[in-house]
C-alpha cells in the first residue's frame, strides 16, 4: 500500500472515484454493446439477404439501409455525441451521465457492427445457401440455420472488434459528461497533469482490450472446424 501510494499518489487518493469510473465504463459497454449487438445483427442480416442476388432480394430496402449506414459511419463520433443530445433527452430523459450517452453510442457503433456482420455473413459459401434451399429450407431457415450458424466464428470476431471499438467510443463519451475511464483520465490525468492516472487508465484499457480479444479468439476458434 505504501509502495503504491508512493508510485501512484494521485490515483490512490482517488481510488473510490477510479473504481466508479471503471464501473461506468463497463456499464456503458454492456448497455450500448447489447443494443448494438441486436440492431447490428438485424441490419447486417437485412443487408445480406436483400442485396442483389440475395435470398430476399429487395433493391429499395437494401439501398435505403446501405445509405443510412454509410451516413452514420461518416459522421465523426464527437459530432454525433453532441448532435444526438436532443434525441437522447427524448428517449432516455437525459443527455448526461451513462444514461445520456447510450443513444449516441448505439448510433456510433451500430453501423460499424452492421458492416462487420454483413462481411462475416458474406463469407458464407453461396453453395451452402443453395444446398439449403434445395432441401426445402425457407429464407428464414436459411438465415438462422445456414448464415448465422455457419458464420458463427466470423460473427464472434466481429463482436470482438466492435466491443473494442465501442470501448474507444465510451472513452470519448466522457467528454460530454458521461463519466467512465475516459472522463477520469482527461479530468485528472490531462487537466491536472496527474501522469500516474493517465498511465493506470491506459493500462486498464489495454488489459480490457486484451481480455476481450483473447475471449473472442478463443470462442471463434472453438467454432471453427
Amino acid at each position: 500500500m505504501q509502495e503504491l501510494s508512493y508510485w501512484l499518489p494521485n490515483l490512490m487518493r482517488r481510488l473510490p472515484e477510479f473504481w466508479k469510473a471503471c464501473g461506468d465504463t463497463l456499464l456503458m459497454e454492456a448497455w450500448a454493446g447489447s443494443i448494438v449487438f441486436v440492431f447490428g445483427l438485424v441490419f447486417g442480416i437485412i443487408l445480406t439477404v436483400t442485396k442483389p442476388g440475395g435470398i430476399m432480394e429487395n433493391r429499395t430496402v437494401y439501398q435505403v439501409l446501405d445509405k443510412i449506414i454509410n451516413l452514420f459511419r461518416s459522421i465523426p463520433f464527437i459530432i454525433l455525441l453532441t448532435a444526438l443530445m436532443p434525441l437522447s433527452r427524448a428517449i432516455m430523459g437525459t443527455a448526461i451521465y451513462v444514461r445520456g450517452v447510450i443513444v449516441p453510442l448505439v448510433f456510433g457503433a451500430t453501423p460499424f457492427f452492421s458492416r462487420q456482420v454483413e462481411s462475416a455473413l458474406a463469407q458464407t459459401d453461396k453453395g451452402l445457401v443453395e444446398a439449403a434451399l434445395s432441401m426445402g429450407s425457407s429464407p428464414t431457415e436459411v438465415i438462422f440455420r445456414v448464415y448465422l450458424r455457419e458464420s458463427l466464428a466470423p460473427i464472434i470476431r466481429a463482436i470482438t472488434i466492435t466491443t473494442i471499438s465501442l470501448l474507444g467510443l465510451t472513452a470519448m463519451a466522457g467528454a460530454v459528461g458521461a463519466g467512465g475511464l475516459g472522463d477520469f483520465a482527461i479530468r485528472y490525468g490531462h487537466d491536472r497533469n496527474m501522469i500516474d492516472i493517465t498511465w493506470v487508465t491506459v493500462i486498464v484499457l489495454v488489459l480490457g482490450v486484451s481480455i476481450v480479444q483473447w475471449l473472442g479468439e478463443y470462442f471463434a476458434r472453438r467454432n471453427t472446424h
Partner: protein
Amino acid sequence: MIELEHVVKNFHADKKDSAIHAVNDVSLTINNGEIFGIIGFSGAGKSTLVRCINLLERPDSGNVRIDGVEMTSLKPKELYKARTKIGMIFQQFNLMPSRTVLQNVAYPLKDMTREQIRERVRELLALVDIPDKENAYPSELSGGQKQRVAIARALANDPTILLCDEATSALDPQTTGAILQLLKDLNRKLGLTIVVITHEMEVVKNICRKAAVMDAGKIIETGDVFEIFSSPKHPVTRNFVRTTSNLSKIETLIRDDSPLVRLKPGEVMARLVYVYADVSEPLISYASRAFDLEINIILADVEIVSGAMVGGTVVIFNGERERINRAIQYYRDKNIRVEVIQDAGA
C-alpha cells in the same frame, strides 16, 4: 415425370445490356426411374436448366411440371415442401463445414425425435456406404466421402428425383467411377429418377441411357446415349464425341507428321466407325482374308455404351486399289461408317 416446356431463363449482366439467354426455349421430358444426362461445354446453360427443375432459378417463361404438378404456380410453402422431394448434389459438395456428418445429413429432417433422426441418418449413411464417419467434420473427409455424405443428405426425405450438378467433376477418375456406381445402385434400389449434368462424356456414357446435348442455352440433340455417341447429328455433338474419343488422336499424329501415319504409295488410311450395335463379327480379319489385304490397325477405341459397342478404329489398307475399294464397300454394307483420311494414290 419431369416435364419442361419452352423454359426460358435470361440473365441481365447490366441494366442496359441485352439479356443473356442462359436457357432458351427448352422442352424436355424425363421419365420416372430414368438416369438422364444433360451434357454440354461449360457455359452451355446446363446448370441453369437443372436449377429450373427445383426452381432455384425461376424461369422467365415456360412450364415446369413434376408428376403433373406445375412447379411455377406453387405458393412459397408448397414449393419448399416440393423441394424436399427433389434431392440435389453439387460439384463442390456444399456440406456445412461447422456441422458433423450426422448433423449435415440431419439438416433436412424435420418433425422427428432425436432418436428417430439418429436412426434415419445411420440408415442413410449405410445406404451410401460410409457408416463409420458420423462424427467427422467435412474437412476431415476425402472428396468421394464428402459426395457420399451429400448424397445421403439429399436422400434424407425420400425424394423421387435426384439432380446431380457436375457431381463428379471435382473427383478423380477412380472416385468418379465409385460415385457413379453408387448412383446407378440407388437408381435401381430406390427407383430414383436421376438427372445428371456434366461436361464429361465419360459420365454420361457410364450411367445414362438417355441424354440431351446442350449448347448456347438450347437442347441441340436428345435421345438414346448410344445413338448420340455413335451417330451424332449436330456439329457440337460431333465435336464433343470426338474430343472424348481416342480416334481423334489421328489428326494430331498426322499434323505432327508421325512416322506411324506416313503412307507408302498405294496405301489408304481410313477411320471405321461402328454405328450399329452389332459388331461382334471379326471385321478386320475377315476383310483381310477375303480381299487379300494387309490391314494395319493404328488406333482403336471401342467402348460399351448402354450395353452396345461404340467406337471404331483407324486402319491403313495396303494392297491393290481395286481390292481396297471392295473392302471399303464391304464395311459400308455392314453399316460401318468409313471415312478415308488419307489416300496415297494408286
